[in-house]
């Protein structure tokens, strides 16, 4: 438990992705089986300890301390696991810290009452950091800023393999993953789990970006594209999924191999085929069109889904590709062949939950560019270009596939608040809340519409930081409020991918993926955009078309 709680504590306090990976790699290298495997199960959310829940922990503490003192402490700390771990009346200088494998193995074999008794016994023995780790582990919901994907990236780094290799076998493995670690240590062959409906590593595309706007070193200039050898289709704004149905087993995976079948039983029920399909998971709006991404978001990351949610937001797959049909693996066929097979496949499907992503006719590059910027629906992010002769390869090979996103929306906003960053940026004000003008009770006022913390160079960050320090009018902890009125204020040109209505935000709007495109030192703050301009950019709300 000691090494496990140290790891959790470092992970929760580290903002940097690379440091998190380094911490996990170190831990996996230094910790033996099966302890590291159980830790991996905790990090990837694969561990479910039945019985002991938040309520049990609360009962345990209220039996041991004055409820009034508990209330005062909980009020101050604000987190149950943390409050209990700190005020548990344990014996100082614990006699023995049980290893994590003992703890988990005992809990998995325990009834609810036994589980509570075990947990209470360990809480007596442990110090606060380990108590916290134990409570987080048994009640679930770590919230330490590590996704299953990041844990797998760390595993890949530890073993010197590609993350895709781990994703491919992941679903055939179970905690405590001894065969996996033995392979990554170089002491055994790669495990080849025999599972039904396995995940196949996904093929990804490089971006196409006009030369002068390129900051991604892997991006390719559109001028390099030969329109004669590429097929084009729309890039939808949903989530990329792989739907696999083989020998009676149906699963749906994300592009990183997470199994999300349980969240989308409506789609699973419609997968009455023998195949592996690559496509976009979307929500169908009442008018039959694709609903905005926000609607899909409402259905993601849920453990269970209600009938009502499925009726209000029916999910569907728009198929891009076919990887396996029956017993035949199609990945080594060129895209032109696979496309024919996919068309025939969707044609004979009786399900209304699966349709095909239409091809966009390619005449020349100019026409493509025009199509990219004026897609037929706002839920389209741009174009996908795929070489007709491309095989379906794992990872992101250079050359066969490209994504060509439409230009972002742009707006001129005024900086309102700035917050210090983390890690390397901890001495810089680097997170900016910005707003636009609107009619207020006393004339024009600025209302916040978003927050951005990247898009600028290091040199620009220094200038922004200087501006914040010189124009601060108020402070709240790490946040500073800066001058923002008609006479004085810094205009930021903000780029974003899309706009949604959001009752949770003051302005009623939420931006997707906002970033600072340009700093408009030259532009007077009074000339920044108004809320009405943003409102005009909103897509028509398909959910309002019901009646």
């Amino acid at each position, binding site marked *: 438990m000691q090494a496990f709680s140290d790891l959790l504590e470092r992970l929760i306090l580290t903002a940097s992705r690379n440091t998190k990976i380094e911490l996990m790699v170190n831990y996996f290298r230094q910790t033996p089986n099966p302890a590291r495997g159980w830790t991996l199960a905790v990090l990837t959310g694969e561990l479910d300890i039945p019985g002991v829940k938040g309520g049990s922990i609360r009962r345990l503490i209220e039996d041991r301390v*004055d409820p009034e*003192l508990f209330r005062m402490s909980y009020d101050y700390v604000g987190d149950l696991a943390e409050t209990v771990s700190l*005020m548990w009346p344990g014996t100082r200088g614990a006699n023995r810290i049980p290893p994590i494998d003992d703890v988990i193995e005992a809990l998995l074999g325990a009834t609810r009452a036994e589980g509570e008794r075990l947990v209470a016994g360990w809480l007596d023995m442990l110090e606060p950091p380990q108590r916290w780790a134990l409570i987080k582990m048994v009640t679930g919901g770590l919230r330490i800023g590590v996704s299953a994907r990041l844990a797998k990236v760390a595993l890949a780094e530890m073993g010197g393999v590609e993350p895709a290799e781990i994703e491919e076998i992941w679903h055939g493995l179970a905690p405590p993953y001894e065969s996996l670690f033995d392979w990554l240590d170089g002491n055994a062959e790669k495990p080849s789990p025999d599972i039904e409906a396995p995940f196949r590593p996904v093929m990804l595309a490089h971006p196409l970006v006009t030369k002068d706007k390129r900051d991604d070193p892997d991006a390719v200039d559109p001028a390099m594209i030969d329109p004669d050898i590429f097929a084009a289709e729309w890039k939808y704004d949903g989530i990329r999924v792989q739907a696999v149905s083989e020998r009676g087993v149906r699963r749906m995976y994300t592009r990183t191999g997470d199994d999300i079948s349980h969240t989308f039983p409506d789609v699973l029920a419609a997968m009455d085929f023998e195949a592996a399909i690559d496509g976009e998971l979307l929500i169908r709006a009442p008018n039959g069109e694709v609903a905005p991404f926000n609607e899909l978001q409402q259905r993601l990351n849920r453990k269970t889904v209600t009938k009502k949610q499925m009726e209000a937001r029916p999910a569907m797959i728009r198929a891009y590709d076919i990887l396996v049909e029956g017993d035949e693996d199609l990945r080594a066929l060129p895209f032109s062949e696979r496309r024919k097979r996919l068309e025939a496949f969707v044609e004979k499907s009786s399900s209304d939950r699966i349709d095909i992503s239409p091809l966009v006719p390619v005449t020349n590059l100019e026409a493509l560019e025009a199509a990219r910027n004026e897609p037929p629906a706002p839920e389209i992010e741009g174009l996908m270009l795929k070489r007709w002769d491309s095989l379906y390869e794992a990872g992101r090979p250079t050359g066969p596939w490209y994504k060509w996103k439409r230009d972002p929306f742009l707006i001129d906003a005024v900086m309102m608040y700035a917050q210090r960053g983390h890690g*390397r940026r901890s001495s810089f004000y680097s997170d900016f809340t910005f707003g636009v003008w609107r009619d207020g009770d006393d004339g024009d006022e600025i209302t916040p519409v978003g927050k951005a913390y990247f898009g600028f160079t290091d040199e620009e960050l220094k200038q922004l930081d200087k501006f914040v320090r010189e124009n601060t009018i108020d402070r709240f902890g790490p946040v500073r409020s800066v001058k923002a009125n008609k006479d004085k204020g810094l205009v930021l040109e903000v780029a974003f991918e899309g706009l949604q209505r959001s009752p949770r935000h003051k302005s009623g709007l939420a931006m997707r993926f906002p970033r600072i495109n340009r700093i408009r030192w030259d532009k007077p703050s009074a000339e920044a955009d108004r809320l009405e301009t943003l409102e005009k950019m909103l897509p028509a709300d398909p959910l309002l078309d019901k009646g």
Partner: protein
Amino acid sequence: MAGKTAHRDLYALTMIRPDLLLHPTPKGLYCPPGDFYIDPVRGAVDRAVVTHGHADHARAGHGAVLATPETLAIMEARYGEEFTTSRQPIEYGETIEINGVTVWMSPAGHVLGSAQVVVEWKGLRMVCTGDYKRRRDPTCRQFEPVPGTHVFISEATFGLPVFRHPDTDGEIRKLLDSVAMFPERTHLVGVYALGKAQRVIKLLREAGYHETLYIHGALEKLCQLYEDHGVALGPLETATLETSERGAHERFRGKIVLGPPSSFHDKWGRRFPDPLPCFASGWMSVRQRAKQSGVELPLIISDHADWDELTDTVREVDPKELWITHGREDALVRWAELKGRKARPLRLVGYEDKSAD
């Protein structure tokens, strides 16, 4: 034990209400018969008794200041020679009379020179702890409980049962382990300039770390003062860049730099390559608090008594009445009620919640 019983009886016989000897006022805790304030918080007073040198307890401009010689030296280092018109040094255990009130000092174990103020009048003994801690600190005298205390006026900075500071050596080990694990990063350790800085330095030396430690300019004078009082701190260097040469800051890689917590958020903090922010404070036991302030390595090292030290000390001193000041008073009052002790929150304002960076 006999002495203690005698005192208790005397308390019952004196009929002196403790309020007559010390009571809270807007300027701080006031002693009417002695006409002095203990750690006055607002404005200048004619006569102040000061428990220790932290700025919220020791302010400049009072007429006369009675304090330990170390505390007076600290006030001079911070405010200059003119911080008061009359300095009255008093050694631990030495007694003096002020208008018929006997005053003496007992070590508080908080920082160099820190003292509990003992005030006696007509058989009534009241002890004001100032800030204190019970665990070992190689840079100052250990706390000494005053037997026969009738009214114990305790600080309560960490007066909630969630504050239970772990073993200090373990926290120092955590820092050294991190330096070994990330040899390419600069460990920036936030410390208060008086007390915490010198204690952390001394503890690092005791743990076998003998490399040069780099310090912020704000720590220089006080480190020197500790050295002058016999606390050896080993090789220290100011974390300045002598040259504007490119790459000069590279020499901080793998090193430990100490400074006031706010300095690392300032432009000063930018000179350090790949910084790893640490903070040595009792507040760091609450993880969310550490996370919000951007601290990656919290070090739970406190110069205040934690909940167990506070309650154990009250049990040990066993006063007739417990008065509680600056900090989380309500929880300690609740605890006292549950234990059948008479307790009263003073609600003095003006002492800083040092939790802010």
